[in-house]
């Protein structure tokens, strides 16, 4: 039994998931000490008269939804292209604008119209993703530079689609997407994240996509020589990220029934990249673990909610965030990992030597 336990620790120690797990654990422990009721979840009735779950835990899971979905897509792009897409926030704003535009085109908002709007905004976002992807895959432009184009002009395009500053939509269906489905006490964005997770799990289980992406990321030419269409794989990863942007944009818009092209998911690209990094994924491409990025995203959101709950002054929030992030990134760096590993070995040999002496 002891052997199995040490084996489990060994697996975890070598696992890239160690850092995000420690981050979440630290935040949980810190909050429990600060306020033991921090994670308590209660059932209340919302203003529509439906029962809903409420509490910081729900706020974290719910609020992180867009970030989690984007970091899933970002993981694939990072792995395949060895670079990051910094246009995800802008693209989500475009997708959200298209979504609202379609909803406002018809008279009344019905379920088929919402579905159509989602499919169209998905198509538009995937087309923009293909644009980014072709710059990277065909023209070999650094991903960050290639996506800088859409990062710069994306929100202007969204403005142009909106044709006004902040169009609003209100409908029970939109409310059901962004908030709660009547009768189900779990926020819908959490359900959408679970759905996306299942989709990716199935995709990795029943296709060779994951393997192909990793091989393209590790060595593009070797992958090509082995018959993998590396251009196609890179392109595909950007298109999948585009679809993720559409889903995130739709959730963001539906939360409040309002599209503000300037503020929708603002600065989320940096958090998405950070989530991938905290998740222990190599930002230079190659092997990846999507679950790491997901944990990283939840850790970032948990940090934000913790700071709000601590009532940190508004001018200091970013500084606090930065300190924690520096700690996490340093903790995950190879140098620190190696040092910790060496320390562990030395301790173990010392203990063994001590035990040996005791026997004599």
């Amino acid at each position, binding site marked *: 039994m002891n052997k199995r336990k040490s084996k489990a620790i060994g697996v975890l120690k070598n696992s890239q998931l160690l850092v995000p797990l420690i981050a979440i654990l630290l935040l949980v422990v810190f909050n429990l000490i600060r306020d033991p009721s921090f994670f308590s979840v209660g059932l209340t009735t*919302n*203003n529509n008269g439906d029962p809903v779950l409420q509490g910081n835990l729900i*706020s974290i899971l719910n609020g992180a939804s867009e970030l989690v979905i984007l970091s899933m897509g970002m993981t694939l792009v990072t792995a395949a292209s060895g670079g990051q897409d910094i246009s995800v926030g802008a693209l989500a704003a475009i997708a959200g604008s298209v979504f609202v535009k379609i909803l406002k085109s018809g008279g009344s908002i019905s379920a088929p119209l919402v579905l159509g709007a989602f499919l169209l905004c998905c198509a538009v976002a995937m087309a923009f993703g293909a644009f980014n992807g072709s710059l990277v895959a065909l023209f070999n432009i650094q991903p960050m530079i290639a996506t800088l184009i859409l990062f710069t002009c994306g929100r202007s395009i969204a403005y142009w689609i909106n044709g*006004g500053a902040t169009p609003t939509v209100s409908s029970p269906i*939109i409310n059901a997407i962004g908030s709660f489905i009547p009768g189900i006490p779990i926020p819908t964005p959490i359900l959408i994240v679970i759905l996306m997770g299942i989709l990716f799990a199935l995709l990795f289980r029943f296709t060779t996509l994951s393997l192909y992406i990793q091989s393209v990321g590790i060595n593009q030419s070797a992958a090509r020589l082995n018959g993998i269409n590396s251009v196609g794989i890179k392109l595909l990863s950007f298109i999948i990220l585009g679809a993720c942007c559409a889903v995130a944009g739709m959730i963001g818009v539906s939360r*409040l029934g309002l599209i503000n092209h300037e503020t929708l998911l*603002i600065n989320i690209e940096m958090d998405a990249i950070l989530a991938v990094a905290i998740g222990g994924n190599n930002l230079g491409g190659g092997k990846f673990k999507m679950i790491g990025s997901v944990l990283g995203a939840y850790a970032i959101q948990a940090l934000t909610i913790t700071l*709000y709950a601590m009532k940190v002054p*508004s001018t200091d929030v970013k500084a606090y965030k930065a300190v924690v992030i520096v700690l996490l990134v340093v903790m995950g760096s190879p140098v620190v990992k190696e040092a910790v590993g060496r320390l562990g070995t030395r301790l173990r040999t010392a203990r063994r030597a001590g035990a040996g002496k005791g026997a004599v």
Partner: protein
Amino acid sequence: MKKLIAVALVIVLCLSLMPAAFADDLIKVGVVNNPPSESGYREANVNDFINVFTKENGYDASFFYSIKNDEQLSAARQFITDGVDYLLISAAETTGWDAVLKDAQEAGIGVFLFDRMIDCDPALFEAAVVSDMAKEGETAVGWLLDQKLNEYNVIHIQGAMGSDAQLGRTGALDEQFDKGTMKKVVQQTATWDEAEAKKIVESVINSGDPFNVIYAENDGMAKGAVAALDEAGITHGVDKDVIVMGFDCNKWALRELQAGNWNYDGQCSPFQAQVISDMIQVLQGGGTIEGLNENKQIISVEKGFDAREITEEDILTYGLGEDVTVG
């Protein structure tokens, strides 16, 4: 050959003078502004100038929009070269304008600043029509004090830290917090982000701290805050548990007031064109502009709307952006 060039030059000169000759009775105005895509506020501001400085009103107006100061500067120089009669500027940045304004003055061009001030000698412009953000905050806080609540437990959601609007709208409320007339439940920036505002209010609700006022520094963040209240089953609006205050007077926000879901919305008036047009007419008639303060400013009149008093006409006159369509 030289003759030919000379003739060509004369023709070009004549052609270039011709429009000026035809447009003799129109007042030439060059407007340098920020692009309408900046915000709903700016869109309304841009449209206001387009609607006031028309041919029917006796103006030949050219417009230039940029968010970059250097592009604005070169556009202003171009307007001076083109020989406009008046130059109207809403600067992207407060500095770097001295040389251009001096050129304009030497060319006998009247300069008006609107919406944003420039750091320069007031002698370089005729007048500035600006908003007083601090006054917006004072008006709103004054309204809140008039509600005579037994206690004020305020959730204060701030805009992007350091922006004019944030500083102005925060100042008056901070004063009350310092005096102790109002209790600060939380003061946090959502950097104008609606979704972030919702998270902030959620965290207060989760902590169980009592509150009865939400003071959000723009409409979008107020909407985010209200979404959090709705999910938690807390009532808000006229004669309800929580007072909701917003700023900017978007049409959709004023509709929330009309429906009694919110209590107050403060205006930041984007309508400065008419005031400037009136002053230009005074100058054209040989008069001098009156009613300026010591910094040669005219402060726009700004209103605050109370949900109990707002009328349909108010919404149509002062509301920004597009109206709500019921889905």
